[in-house]
């Protein structure tokens, strides 16, 4: 296995151009090292951690720019994330263990493109965008189109994710990320549901609703039909029940050793209901009617 530690973005991109299909990019390494040991060594390993300028979390107008090499712990201990993006903070706080959070990067969690990636459903509901850099230029892409399948992203074999822009959610909104796993710490989510709602000014109706589902489809997905059903309405018990069932029907989970597809659908229903209830109460101060 060849090994490179590029010192600049340009160097990394030309290495990817040369070794593309044979290369694996490594940052924190908490997933890649396991693959190297138990699956297959790539022909070439490109360690991007020495590239300057890819860390840090900064406010950038009405959004937060997170460097792709920021660790999950950096995200978790950021006051800006905690106060402005609580739904992302929730997922960083429930991410594996402290040891892993100290090592794993947010860019790695995104580029791994695992349907169960902990930060992904929150990034979808926050309508975050990735900054993708290629040797012939860079582009900004929404994460709704970035994920193409398990392990597949629009970066292909030639691009690098160099930053994440997370716009602040609307004024008055409330969000939560709920994860279902057997064990609180360390465990991979069987299902993860991110909910972000914004009530109207009078706090009577749902003005904006965003629901992200993790681990229940080939990529993390938005439950767009459920969102459309809820938009513009007050959250009543009947609507809540209907919406939760619809979110479950919008998921397409597989059965694996962690749980059956049928069980995952039940959990999507339960977590969607819980997430909507919690955020509605927090945002409006009202019980579900």
């Amino acid at each position, binding site marked *: *296995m*060849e*090994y490179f*530690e590029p010192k600049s973005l340009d160097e990394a991109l030309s290495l990817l151009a040369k070794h593309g299909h044979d290369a694996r990019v*490594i940052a924190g*390494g*908490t997933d890649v*090292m*396991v693959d*190297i*040991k*138990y699956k297959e*060594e790539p022909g070439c*390993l490109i*360690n991007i*951690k020495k590239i300057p300028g890819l860390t840090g979390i900064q406010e950038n107008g009405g959004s937060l720019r997170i460097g792709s090499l920021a660790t999950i*712990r950096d995200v978790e201990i950021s006051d800006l994330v905690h106060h402005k993006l609580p739904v992302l903070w929730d997922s960083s706080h429930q991410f*594996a*263990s*402290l*040891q*892993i959070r*100290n*090592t794993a990067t947010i860019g790695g969690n995104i580029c791994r493109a695992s349907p169960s990636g902990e930060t992904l459903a929150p990034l979808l509901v926050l309508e975050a965008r990735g900054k993708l850099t290629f040797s012939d230029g860079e582009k900004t892409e929404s994460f709704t189109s970035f994920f193409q399948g398990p392990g597949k992203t629009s970066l292909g074999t030639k691009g690098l994710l160099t930053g994440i822009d997370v716009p602040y959610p609307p004024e008055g909104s409330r969000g939560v990320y709920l994860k279902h796993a057997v064990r*609180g*710490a*360390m465990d991979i989510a069987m299902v993860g549901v991110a909910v972000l709602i914004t009530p109207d000014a009078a706090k009577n109706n749902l003005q904006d609703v965003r629901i992200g589902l993790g681990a229940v489809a080939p990529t993390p997905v938005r439950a767009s039909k459920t969102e459309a059903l809820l938009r513009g309405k007050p959250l009543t018990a009947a609507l809540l029940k209907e919406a939760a069932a619809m979110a479950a029907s919008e998921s397409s989970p597989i059965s694996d050793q962690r749980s059956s597809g049928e069980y995952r659908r039940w959990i999507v229903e339960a977590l969607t209901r819980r997430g909507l209830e919690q955020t509605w109460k927090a945002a409006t101060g009202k019980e579900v009617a």
Partner: protein
Amino acid sequence: MSLTVNTTINGQAVSASAEASTSLLEFLRDTLEMKGSKLCCNTGECGACTVIYNGKPINSCVTMAADANGAEIITIEGLADGDKLHPVQQAFIDTGAVQCGYCTPGYIISVKALLDRTTKPTAEDIEEAVSGNICRCTGYNKIVDAIHLAADRIAGRA
């Protein structure tokens, strides 16, 4: 492909070669013959291999040895001062927080990292600090007792 790792382990400069695929844990145990950090799950899930990397606890089994270049690493071998055990080690003995002992070096490192951050850890701090360490024997209560005792001793409260 071989590379040279220049690092600092327990305050001592170390230079040795490693493969790109070598984990920091393999580098410690097999290259440097430092067997205190334990190999267990080898996938970053059990915490037996925990070391302190630039002040932060990490799983050495899923860290590249190459990333130890220029870093400061603290392992279980670096805690005692001659024959005098580190307060965390002594507290684990005094409370009986050890049974089979395999997870113990990882726990002690995680707890040292916690008590380097604060000597007044809350119940939540403790839970977070050792949530990535698995013990199959003790039932955890004595480990938590040991953490409180070590914190009290380090802060001069006991």
